[in-house]
């Protein structure tokens, strides 16, 4: 361990997950609107991945892959009430056990509030979302210290009480369905900080980075999840005026956004009918305003890492865990399908010693970031729970650039139907299930320019993304479909063989239930 920290005492990693951020709304990816000048600037001096894909279509499977280095079929953390099996040692656990200080700043309740194992291995984890956020302590020596202590105690008790309740919403139960009624949506989106506190979390992460610089003491892994571009959309006025200048003069646009922001059920399922022109433009422009607002706030982080200390010592990774459907192909949100708007994500890495942009054209997966971070910290191999040790360098995005032969020859992305959304459709829109094959798992295999989407038990569709980036014209090539299907079958067979002995299970409120029971029996206070 001493040797490990000897090698790493000056190294840090900052990972910024832009939750629900489309790649095609960034200037760096060719978007003509000035939505992301700050991130574009950082991207212009980074290892820039033109075609990164997410392993899953939403937060839970995608983060589980990022934290374990495995695909969804292997980690089986697919639903809001799934917990990461215990045998997976998360990235934070691996780093923490070698002496790296691991700190999370999180705005997404699916990552920070649910007791699903995603926080495993973090030495410090701050939740900006939820009924009672937990944020970094202020200075310890001010005159308000006694008040702060009392407040801390009070919030700890509140948190203890509220977390089990918030976890109960993860299951596709009556709690969850009730909460989606338009009357209740403003309550949990605002009072329960559903999208966290973007501005505050960015400010406090920037301050944390500045403290690291002042201390000149490395060995930090910092994870920041931002939710500003997630529904509901309510960007500040100046950004609405810039990106949707017609909004305040168009009652139809305002009415549509008011309704959209309250009808949370419809964030999760395919569209009953396509958006009309005003709806489509409004949604797209308001989304852009959110992207621009978040980018504006991110200037604080980008300034903080612009110092010579961080340039020399800190690897900075920006990515999205998935994109977002804004009406394309009949879909809204990020519950179903594997279209490029949803699966292709922004990814760039600013590296010490990299002085100018280096563009990587071939396709990579954000799952590989697990190995990339380990590679940066000097791990050679990664023991995995089911497989033999993995050669970190071959999976790492830092070295596969120069060692193209040993990287993956294909990539796989998977969309398991979210049970919560299926329950909604069963209750309210059963016809949509059939129309969109929503009850079936979709899996995509990428190889070179080809993408085959297999809808389990239904069909297999082949696209050539080079000539058909919008996936509008599937083409027939039975030989290629068979070859890509064989790759997929191989992955699924391997995943199935690895399931034996897995401890996969649902999130449980067992601790609280048992503690209450033992308290009633007089065995606990």
């Amino acid at each position, binding site marked *: 361990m001493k040797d490990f920290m000897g090698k790493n005492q000056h190294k840090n990693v900052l990972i910024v997950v832009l939750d629900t951020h489309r790649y095609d709304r960034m200037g760096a990816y060719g978007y003509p609107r000035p939505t992301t000048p700050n991130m574009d600037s950082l991207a212009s001096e980074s290892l820039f991945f033109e075609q990164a894909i997410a392993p899953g279509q939403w937060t839970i499977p995608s983060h589980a892959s990022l934290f374990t280095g495995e695909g969804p079929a292997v980690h089986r953390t697919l639903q809001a009430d799934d917990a990461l099996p*215990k045998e997976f040692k998360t990235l934070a656990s691996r780093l923490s056990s070698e002496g790296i200080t691991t700190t999370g700043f999180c705005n997404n309740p699916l990552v920070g509030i649910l007791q699903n194992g995603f926080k495993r291995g973090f030495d410090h984890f701050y939740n900006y979302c939820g009924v009672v956020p937990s944020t970094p302590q202020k200075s310890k020596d001010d005159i308000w210290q006694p008040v702060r202590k009392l407040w801390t105690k009070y919030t700890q008790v509140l948190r203890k009480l509220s977390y089990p309740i918030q976890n109960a919403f993860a299951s596709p139960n009556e709690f969850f369905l009730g909460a989606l009624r338009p009357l209740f949506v403003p309550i949990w989106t605002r009072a329960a900080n559903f999208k966290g506190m973007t501005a505050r979390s960015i400010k406090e992460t920037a301050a944390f980075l500045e403290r690291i610089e002042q201390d000149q003491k490395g060995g930090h892994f910092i994870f920041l999840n931002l939710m500003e571009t997630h529904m509901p959309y309510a960007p500040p006025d100046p950004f609405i005026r810039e990106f949707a200048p017609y909004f305040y003069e168009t009652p139809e646009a305002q009415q549509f956004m008011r309704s959209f922001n309250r009808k949370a059920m419809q964030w999760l399922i395919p569209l009953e009918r396509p958006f009309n022109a005003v709806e489509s433009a409004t949604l797209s422009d308001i989304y852009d305003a959110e992207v621009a607002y978040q980018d504006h706030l991110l200037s604080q982080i980008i300034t903080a890492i612009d110092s010579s200390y961080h340039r020399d010592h800190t690897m900075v990774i920006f990515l999205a865990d998935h994109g977002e459907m804004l009406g394309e192909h009949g879909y809204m949100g990020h519950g179903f399908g594997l279209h490029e708007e949803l699966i292709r994500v922004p990814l760039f890495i600013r590296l010490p010693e990299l002085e100018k942009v280096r563009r990587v054209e071939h396709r990579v997966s954000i799952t590989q970031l697990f190995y990339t971070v380990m590679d940066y910290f000097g791990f050679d191999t990664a023991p995995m729970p089911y497989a033999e040790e993995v050669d970190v360098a071959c999976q790492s995005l830092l070295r596969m650039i120069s060692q193209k032969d040993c990287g993956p020859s294909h990539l796989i992305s998977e969309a398991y139907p979210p049970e919560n959304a299926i329950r909604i459709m069963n209750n309210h829109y059963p016809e949509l299930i059939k129309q969109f094959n929503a009850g079936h798992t979709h899996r995509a295999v990428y190889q070179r320019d080809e993408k085959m989407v297999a809808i389990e038990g239904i069909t297999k569709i082949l696209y050539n993304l080079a000539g058909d980036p919008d996936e509008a014209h599937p083409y027939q090539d039975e030989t290629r479909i068979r070859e890509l299907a064989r790759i997929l079958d191989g992955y699924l067979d391997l995943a199935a063989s690895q399931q034996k002995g897995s*401890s996969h*299970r649902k999130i*449980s*409120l*067992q*601790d609280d*239930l*048992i*503690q*209450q*029971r*033992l308290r*009633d*029996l*007089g*065995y*606990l*206070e």
Partner: protein
Amino acid sequence: MTLVIDGIRNPDDDNPKGYYEYERVKKLPQGEADWLKSYQGKGIKIISALLTHLPEDYRYQVIFMERDIDEILASQQRMLERSGKEEENSVSEAVMRQSYIDHLDDVKSWLSEKEWIQTIYVSYNKILQNSENEMEKVAAFLNLELDVQRMVEIVDPGLYRQRK
């Protein structure tokens, strides 16, 4: 081996011969563990939910008593009924059962990772069936000159009431 018992919890219908409790163990979650220093070399009853709060400053030998889950639940239910608290525990037996299975899995996993804790698992039901055999295992585990016959005499099958 001396057992640390405070005698605060009196015998009742559930346990007519009394409880082997030491109330201060309940303070472990708050970090109050200084008292452990005074009881090195002695035996203390600690429920599974509190084991993970034991400080690393000492080495422990844990005799982990296992019992059929359904019998545990039946026994607890009876105790709750007697104390009038059964209304507060409105979850189904199936949910509670699974919770206990998961909880025990977690605690065992935790114990397995701690090199400063040695654990032996003994079966409550086997102790009733073949006390001598099980007590010999415990004595060997503790590596002490214990009076196995006296240990066997403590077992009272008359207290085995919640059977499957």
